């Protein structure tokens, strides 16, 4: 008999109580119900335990993974901006904020339009920039590449690609790379090359002139020899 039931009989009927035969079936049914209740509760508690463990484990794995992802996105050389299909900023890295000098509260509001206006001011060709952005939002599957020239003379490469989960496009990822130095170095090289080319032209020109002069000198020398010989004829014997 279930302990609780035994105790109840003892408490209410005394130690030596004999259950009458006609009640035995009912008592057995009650006993079964008590036992089953314990089993049910045991199963429930076990399920709760195991589920909790599973969830804890899954959570901590997920947290670890998220940390890793965040660290990755912060370690890239590029500024990264992720926007969903509704135009809301989903995520970004510190470099992105630094590039555009975007104040904390605009980024936190996660409003792409607001961030966009803040950024347009800094560009030499804001209309071109805006058109490109609008064009790409209308074409979620398109990729893009272009260069942005800032008013402060910085130059950036801008890539974008659709962001996919499975087959579905869920947003767009923009990446920005500072190529100001590279552009400057390119310009510098171009200048140097021009200079060298000019100098070369000039040097070649001079060479030719020198040759010309030399030839003229030779001619003159010949003439001088001729004259000298002529002069010898007229000297007194």
């Amino acid at each position, binding site marked *: 008999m279930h302990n609780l039931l035994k105790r109840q009989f003892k408490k209410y009927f005394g130690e030596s109580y004999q259950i009458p035969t006609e009640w035995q079936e009912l008592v057995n049914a009650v006993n079964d*119900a008590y036992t*089953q209740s314990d089993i*049910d509760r*045991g*199963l429930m508690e*076990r*399920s709760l335990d*195991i*589920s909790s463990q599973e*969830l804890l484990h899954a959570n901590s794995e997920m947290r670890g993974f998220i940390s890793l992802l965040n660290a990755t996105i912060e370690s890239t050389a590029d500024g990264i901006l992720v926007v969903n299909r509704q135009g809301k900023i989903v995520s970004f890295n510190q470099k992105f904020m630094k590039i555009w000098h975007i104040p904390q509260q605009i980024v936190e509001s996660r409003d792409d339009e607001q961030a966009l206006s803040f950024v347009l001011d800094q560009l030499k060709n804001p209309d071109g920039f805006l058109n490109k952005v609008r064009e790409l939002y209308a074409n979620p599957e398109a990729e893009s590449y272009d260069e942005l020239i800032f008013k402060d003379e910085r130059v950036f490469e801008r890539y974008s690609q659709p962001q996919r989960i499975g087959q579905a496009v869920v947003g767009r990822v923009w990446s920005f790379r500072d190529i100001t130095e590279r552009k400057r170095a390119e310009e510098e090289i171009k200048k140097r090359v021009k200079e060298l080319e000019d100098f070369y032209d000039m040097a070649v020109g001079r060479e030719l002139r020198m040759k010309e002069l030399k030839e003229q000198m030779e001619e003159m020398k010949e003439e001088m020899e001729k004259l000298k010989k002529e002069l010898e004829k007229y000297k007194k014997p």
Partner: protein
Amino acid sequence: MKIEQKRWTEEKGWFPELKGTVDEAVQLVLLFGATQLLKDLTYIHDIKSAYPKAHLFGCSTAGEICSTQITDNSLVITAVSFEYTQIKCAQVKIRSSLDSLQAGEILARSLEKDDLVHVIVLSDGINVNGSDLSEGLNNNLPEGVSITGGLAGDGERFQETLVFCDDIPARDTISVLGLYGKSLKVGYGSLGGWDPFGPERLITRSKGNILYELDGKSALELYKRYLGEHAKNLPASGLLFPLSIRAKEGENGLVRTILSVNEEEQSLTFAGDVPEGVYARLMKANFDRLIDGAIDAAKKSYLTIGSFSPELAILISCVGRKMILKQRTEEEVEGVRDILGDKTVLAGFYSYGEICPFTLGTKCDLHNQTMTITVLSEK
């Protein structure tokens, strides 16, 4: 319709008495009973003598329902004399669960289509893929014909189930009863009352209705972990944790129950498909939600039939519910009685699976762990 019910138990024999009855007006006798009793053909012989013109349609069970009483190791007959409705039977034998789709097709094709209103299907409960069977039936019956039914049971043994229609009760058998006539009104409802809990698990390895792995790990091991000491009672104890299969967006989720376990292959066989790439969650039962599920199923069936008080209600409820509710199981049948009213005759059994449309007018599906009610009335 005129309906009468009789039950055979070991203590009382037939009650009301069967001997002496000869009723030629009865066209259909529904017979549900324990596997062992159905194997003894003397009972069936006696029933046939009492109702010589009737089709005998039924199966083995995990419990018989007669009015609001549930019994085990008994036989319950529900003898029906229809006023207008015609009935026809068909039966097919299968070799393995792979035949289930084709079996559904063959059965559907064997029924005449003119004036066909509703089909009741009773299937072997262990060797059939219930979802394939449903698909086979759905694809080959005309629009507007509803299908309900269930998988036969075998107590909590899960060893062999018997099904019959005018034949010797046999295993690996699927039978259908076609109901014909415009006067027949049919309603149905199916609800569970089980709640998913815990994490979603991806089905990473399965084949049809056999599940091998969830999230790359053994599904059998997962069940054993949750069951603890009850693991030794698999597959029966597996009913304590049915699986909720997440369907595609916008579709209803499905519940799947374990029918058998294979230790060597480390697999679990379910009553219906458990496709790879789909997310599953374990489910648990709550007494009150189970009872409410039965009550709501009755309400659903009541609504779909219009506002008549139905004459006959066939209740097919899952053995998993009986295992949880135990002594309180009758509460769910009483709940159905409260909704349908005193005049409705309640018949049915505890099954290894239920077949019913999700909602009015949709195709039928295999369900598990539900109370599925089919109500019939002649106008």
